[in-house]
């Protein structure tokens, strides 16, 4: 089984802070990591390989430093990793990004399953996966929390939904986006890390793939960021002033009765 996992290197947004004076993001010292949901996708791919055999390839698009993220995925146990990197890809929105990744996937030839994290934690769009599936003309299932069975024709998965779970059977080849609860990503072993360090990571530029250049980068991005700002926060409310928890609770309940909540 040929499995490709699309990953993104992202700043660890849980470590990002706002400078209160300038109202801008403080990026200094913020580590670059493999998007956490993508690690779940890598783990899902490795588990599929363990069960059904085959090969796991990691594909990413980004600047050259994204190689670090790919190395981490190799250290987890992936077989190969490829980086799409070129100035022509810079400034891409989700649609342009999906065109570049789809072009990379087409170059790889036969792929049975494409796995993506449900979204990246820097952009939180959750759009690149479905857009790749669309360009490749294959089935998709998003928010997958369990892969229960796979054969050559179909894959059976559970999909997270607002009210619970759906059990879905999809025709292969398929693109799945996975949620965190699907698994617990393994840590790279020392042996895996050493192996990953020796591994060559091919860089594909825009000339290495077949793609319409007008569909890439800023030029191929229908959406444009017009303005970036820090969100407003509400004004301070009332803290219950009391000596004991019981008094504070009584005071709060009185307020809630006053405003007709209770």
């Amino acid at each position, binding site marked *: 089984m040929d499995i490709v996992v699309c990953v993104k290197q992202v700043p660890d947004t849980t470590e990002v*802070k706002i400078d209160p004076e*300038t109202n*801008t*993001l403080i*990026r200094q010292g913020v580590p670059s990591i493999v998007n956490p949901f993508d690690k779940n996708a890598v783990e899902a791919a490795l588990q599929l390989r363990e069960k059904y055999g085959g090969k796991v390839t990691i594909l990413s698009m980004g600047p050259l430093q994204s190689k670090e993220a790919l190395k981490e995925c190799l250290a987890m146990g992936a077989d190969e990793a490829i980086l799409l990197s070129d100035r022509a890809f*810079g*400034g891409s929105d*989700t*649609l342009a990004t999906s065109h570049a990744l789809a072009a990379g996937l087409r170059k790889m030839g036969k792929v049975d399953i494409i796995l993506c994290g449900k979204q990246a*934690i*820097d*952009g*939180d*769009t959750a*759009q690149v996966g*479905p*857009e790749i599936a*669309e360009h490749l003309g294959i*089935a*998709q*299932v*998003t*928010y997958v929390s369990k892969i229960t069975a796979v054969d050559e024709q179909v894959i059976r998965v*559970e999909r997270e*939904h*607002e*009210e619970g*779970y*759906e*059990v*879905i*059977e999809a*025709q292969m080849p398929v693109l799945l986006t996975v*949620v*965190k609860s699907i698994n617990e990503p393994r840590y790279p072993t020392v042996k895996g890390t050493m192996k990953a360090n020796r591994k060559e990571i091919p860089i594909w530029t825009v000339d290495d793939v077949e793609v319409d250049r007008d569909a890439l980068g800023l*030029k191929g991005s*229908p*959406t*444009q*960021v*017009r*303005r*970036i*700002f*820090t*969100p407003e*926060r*509400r004004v*301070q*409310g009332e*803290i219950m002033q009391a000596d004991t*928890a*019981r008094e*504070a*609770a009584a005071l*709060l*309940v009185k307020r809630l009765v006053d*405003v007709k*909540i*209770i």
Partner: protein
Amino acid sequence: MAVKVNPEECIGCTACVSACPFGAIVMEDGKALITDACTACGACIDVCPVGAIHREVEEKNVSMNKDEFKGVWVYIEQVGGQARNVGYELLNEGRKLADAMGQELAGILIGDNVDQLTKEVFARGADTIYLVEGKEFSHYSTDAYTITLTDLIHTYKPAVILMGATNDGRDLGPRVAGRVGTGLTADCTNLGIDPATGLVAWTRPAFGGNIMATILCPDHRPQMGTIRPNVFKRSAPDYSRTGEIIRVDSKVKMTDIRTKLLEIIREGVASANLEEAEIIVSGGRGLSKPESFALIEELAEVLGGAVGASRAVVDAGWKPALYQVGQTGKTVGPKVYFACGISGAIQHVAGMSSSDIVIAINKDPEAPIFKIANYGIVGDVMEVIPALIDEIKKVKTAG
């Protein structure tokens, strides 16, 4: 529209370097240099004290005749013939956009036996309804719904499409945008009209809710976006409103549908109600141990509310992911939100900041949650919640 620095004018002050949300500007030989990570957001243009940074207008090869595209559409998501609230919330907001643009507002209804919803869709503000019905739509499937919505777009050419940022909405939106070849802005929390261009200004949180970005789709149509449930209110229904129903035949063949829904497993009632709940009681790390979560459940029960959880609690495995409120979990907008032992990290706030009233209980008086709380108690949740449950019970039995 690439952003460029004029090195002649750059004074090397580095103001743009720290202003760039994407870390895309570096200093080279004492001058600012914009790297590939640039998304052309223009944050640097605003902060440059000498006006050395500017936007370069680039030719786009877009053959689309934008003037052909008219009207604001709201996709009415339904499950088993029941419309989700988000569709009605978006009709209310879409009405404002349509009026500002001087265009009409349409509801898009795709489903099996959904014509009983048309009355409500008109009452909530639609002028027109595009209705596509058939057995193939009895459950959501990416393929059937994508084919149908794409067909409607190609035939009737709307200028704007609003969809709920639900799991199905975020499955369908990108698939349709990819097929049509247009821009889609994900997970918006605010909408407006950009005064300079007349385009829809889509505003959304990014970087885990740390920043907001306003996004435009200038050259492609329709302008599409998914909008979080619960950030807009529904209007009061006006049942005297009527309009034109345009029935469109389904073009879907059963063989087009490559996925099959075998079974629906429903979780507990509390989780099902989270997005529609009027009162939510959420617990966080301040509870110290998983067993203490029973207190949260008890408080929710006496208030008749639903139970939520912070990411820390879900990550620790105390609660399934379905309960998670926040940027990567659910977005909620109840009348009352109780944050118990939740510090109020920006990722959590991003998922509940549209709540009408926020009540925070935390032993750390400096916890950021108090900054957005209407009422707060500084104290140990393990002491405060049992007291609160008692007091509420007293009031309820007395009343």
